């Protein structure tokens, strides 16, 4: 083993040629060193940038995720299997029906006027003669005393 180490030490005689050394040295010193990187400043900048980038990415993911969820979620108006076209057509036809029923209502209203209108209208054509006769007989316009009411009051006072 000592012999091996001794022989290894002899390898120290290996040297470069002086011509190479001189040439290499001259060439090297013609070069200029690269500017130093301020590692700490760079690290801080990189950290700041990466944090900002992470937050932006997180915000983007949340926004996109929310949009996707809203689009896919079963909201009342967006039930799976519901045909929007059919719904629209139905809505349009419903509007037509309403207007038709209003027309019907208006026509009936024209023939049957409310009692207020009858009272305000002095035209005798609006009075039903039979009803008026019946009412006149009950009320006794000449002596407007209802004996039945008087009897009832007397019974109560006893």
């Amino acid at each position: 083993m000592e012999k091996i180490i001794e022989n290894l030490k002899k390898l120290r005689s290996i040297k470069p040629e002086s011509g190479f050394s001189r040439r290499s040295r001259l060439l090297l010193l013609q070069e200029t060193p690269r500017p130093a990187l301020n590692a700490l400043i760079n690290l801080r900048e990189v950290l700041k940038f990466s944090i900002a980038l992470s937050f932006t990415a997180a915000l983007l993911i949340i926004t996109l995720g929310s949009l996707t969820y809203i689009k896919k979620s079963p909201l009342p108006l967006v039930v799976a299997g519901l045909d929007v076209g059919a719904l629209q057509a139905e809505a349009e036809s419903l509007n037509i029906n309403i207007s038709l029923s209003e027309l019907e209502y208006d026509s009936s209203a024209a023939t049957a006027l409310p009692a207020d209108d009858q009272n305000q209208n002095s035209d005798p054509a609006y009075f039903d003669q039979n009803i008026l006769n019946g009412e006149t007989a009950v009320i006794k316009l000449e002596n407007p005393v209802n004996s039945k009411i008087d009897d009832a009051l007397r019974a109560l006072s006893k």
Partner: protein
Amino acid sequence: MFTSLSMLAGDENIIVKKARAGHAESFGQLYDEHHERIYRFIYLKVRGKEEAEDLTHQVFLSAWQNIKQYALKNLPFSSWLYRIARNKVIDYYRLRKQTVNIEAVKNVIPAETDILASADTDMETRAIHSAISGLTPEQQDVVIMRFVEDMPIKEVARSIGKTVGAVKLIQFRAISKLKNITNNHGENNRES
């Protein structure tokens, strides 16, 4: 002027500070101090003179261009250079794997077109150089740093990013493997 300085740690820190401030001549001094070791480290791993020269130049070019980031590393300058060198060697083999079949190249070019072949070195030294290539890259790193460069075990650990205990284990296995390889090599030579 080209001189090899042997710096003390305190002196080196001052020179490194000057180099970090963009003083080219200070970086030149650091180059003078460390380039032989880095060259040797690379050479023993790639085993080719031109490749070793090219990679050594790249290591120091990277070091000079990025010298202002060195303060953040909190390890000796030489350890920082070894780290760059290790990465360059890894890149070299990765690129080489993608472009050529290593086995095919081995058959065409002799394995050692190197300094040792031409230098006045004994067989055993050449054998140990060949044996290093039989180790794993991590074992090579530890063996070169510990026994060729005489680096303290703590600095080796910091250079390769391991614990001291792990380096000791790698070192033990590497030496055992080298022993086996050199023994086998010796037996083969005797038989032939």
